[in-house]
């Protein structure tokens, strides 16, 4: 009898344990699926909401999709919404920032990974990490208070009047500062991953340390460095708060003059919201879709360029 009782207890315990296992597995699985479905939810909901203004049944008056996409005027007050020029502005400011930041990032990464003595390298690494950890709103305050002043003074040299320094150039400089740490830290990782024997071979063939660094190391780390550039560009396109503080909000465009105010997709989404219904609200979601498409396409095209360069080598 005694034996029976312990036996029963055992199976009972065993079953409980199995049930517990099944329960937790289900729970873990459910949260993994929940986490991974977030991206689908985000894209799905924004797509549906953002495409509404172009549907025939739209309650605030259907908008023409084509004129939204290529329009060169964006005026909330008169209900004209064209984001064509805003897309161009976004591309100009993003690629402009990349143009400034990319060489600086690669050179700094090379310095940290290969050239600097150990103590200096680790100090520089900290500098890059600090730059990366400064929140965008703080960069925004800095840009609004100092970069704009710089741009204003620079423009005054050419006898150009700016809107208090808020300008395309200010946006580019600000974004360059913000994407610099992103590109640099990825470039450092890429450079450190270059196999030692490649460098040894180059050195053995009589190249100097510097020649090896610039010709062998950099070209071997190319693909990683480009990945950093892609990430930086994505950040530049998606950056909202800081950019809105220095962009001004131009109503038409595109803006090619670096001293003129500009308007990016993010600053369009972020600023001037008054109501949470109506076209002016819904059109921000449409701009959100355009933003995601811009990021996607630019990523794909940089990837394409990367592969082209890769096959040349």
């Amino acid at each position, binding site marked *: 009898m005694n034996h029976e009782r312990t036996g029963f207890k055992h199976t009972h315990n065993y079953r409980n*344990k*199995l049930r*517990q296992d099944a329960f*937790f*597995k289900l*729970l*873990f699985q459910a*949260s*993994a699926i*929940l*986490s*991974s479905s*977030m*991206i689908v*939810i*985000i894209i799905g*909901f*924004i797509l549906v*909401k953002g495409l509404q203004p172009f549907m025939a049944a739209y309650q605030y008056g259907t908008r023409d999709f084509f004129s939204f996409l290529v329009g060169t005027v964006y005026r909330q007050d008169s209900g004209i919404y064209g984001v064509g020029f805003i897309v161009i502005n976004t591309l100009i400011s993003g690629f402009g920032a990349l143009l400034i930041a990319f060489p*600086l*990032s690669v*050179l*700094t990464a090379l*310095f*940290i990974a290969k*050239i600097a003595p150990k103590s200096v390298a680790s100090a*520089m690494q900290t*500098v*890059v*990490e600090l*730059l990366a*950890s*400064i*929140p*965008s*709103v*703080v960069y*925004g*305050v*800095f840009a*609004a*208070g*100092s970069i704009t002043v710089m741009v204003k003074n620079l423009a005054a040299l050419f006898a150009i009047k700016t809107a208090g320094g808020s300008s395309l150039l200010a946006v580019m400089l600000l974004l360059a*500062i913000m994407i*610099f740490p992103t590109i640099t830290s990825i470039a450092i990782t890429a450079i450190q991953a270059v196999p030692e024997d490649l460098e040894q071979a180059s050195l053995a063939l009589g190249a*100097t340390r*510097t020649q090896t660094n610039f010709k062998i190391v950099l070209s071997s780390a190319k693909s990683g460095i480009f990945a950093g550039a892609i990430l930086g560009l994505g950040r530049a*396109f*998606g*950056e*909202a*708060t800081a950019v809105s*503080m220095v962009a001004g909000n131009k109503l038409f465009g595109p803006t090619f003059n670096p001293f003129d105010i500009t308007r990016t997709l*993010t600053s369009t*989404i*972020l600023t001037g919201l008054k109501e949470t219904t109506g076209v002016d609200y819904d059109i921000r*979601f449409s701009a*959100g879709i355009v*933003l995601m498409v811009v*990021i996607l396409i630019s990523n794909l095209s940089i990837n394409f360029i990367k592969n082209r360069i890769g096959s040349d080598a």
Partner: protein
Amino acid sequence: MKNNRRLLKDRLLNGLTYLSSAISVLVLTLVFIFVFSKGASTLNLKWFTNDYWSVNMYLSFPASGSEVYTIPKTLPAQSQFSTRYGFAVEDYVDESNQKMIRIVYIDPKSPLLESTVLTPGETFGDVQPIKVNMTVQKFSVVDAQGEIHSAGAIVKQDAAQFIETLDKESVSVSSVYVQTIGGGIRGSLIATLYLILVSLLIAIPIGIMSAIYLNEYAQFSKLTPWIRSSIELLTGVPSIIFGLMGMLVLYPITAMVGASGTSVLLGAMTLSIVLLPTIIRSTEESLKTVPDHFRSASLSLGANRSQTIFKIVLPSAIPGILTGVLLSIGRIIGESAALIYTMGTFVNDDPKLLSGGTSLAVQIWSVMGGEVPNFQLASAISIIILAIVLILNVSVKFLANKLRKTW
């Protein structure tokens, strides 16, 4: 000759790397110098507990007897003491460079402590003692002839003139107009704490459980790479898109629990999604470092899988989880774009979970957005944010060293 040219070229190229490194140091220094030079003067302990909005008060207090108050010995030299009414004031310049008179001391027996509200309405007659740190706008003083004069900052008096008018010319004071000091960050601090608590409360369990599934259960499942890359995709989504998503998807949920419009809860829920990839990744990283023989030993001793996970694997993974949490807190404190639409930009001095409010970062956006951007306040808040972020960074590094321990 050729060697010389090569040497020159090498030096030039090397010089370029030095130069670009120097530029990055310069930029970092400039950011710090800017923020500190603009914001340091605003920083003081009172600022943390002050409201953002200053409140105007229209009060009166009973006529004092013939009592004469004595100056306390602890009073600083630049303060002016009114022997007739028993309080001291100081000159002071506020953030928008206006000259103010601030009350720095009130005698425990002073009639100022028995002030009542003069504004008509429900609160009329309620006791509202005048407190230290309020600023004096106007005292309407009655002189010996029964005529009423104005004294205080409103008639451009400084502290000394103000006290002289009170003590030499007045018989009684018919009404008082004072202001509490604004420009503080108490409301945003509270809202930020709420934000950190609630968003971590949502994100940590979901994140850890997802990481456990990916690393412990589905390591070799065909679905896992898909799950992993769709979580990774979240890191590439700009935060403003998260803000749009919050308004669209999560707002109905917060509306169900009683929030009308933007709320701290909505902001926290939005942020919890932003944080998921960070927490999942760092948890997974540390789960990977837990050696397999730990699991085998536990299983062979008769523990089931969930017992093994909760009692053996998770405790060993705590440093990694903590790293994720610290990184997340940094992200929450710095985040602005995703919060502007979900929490609102109105600085709320008394934020609740279901009411609007601003985090510190959003308060910066808010004070920078007006007609005249308030650089002092924005920079002062920036200093706080930078300090917190720096501390978090150091702790993450410290933890990373801990994490590297071998079993």
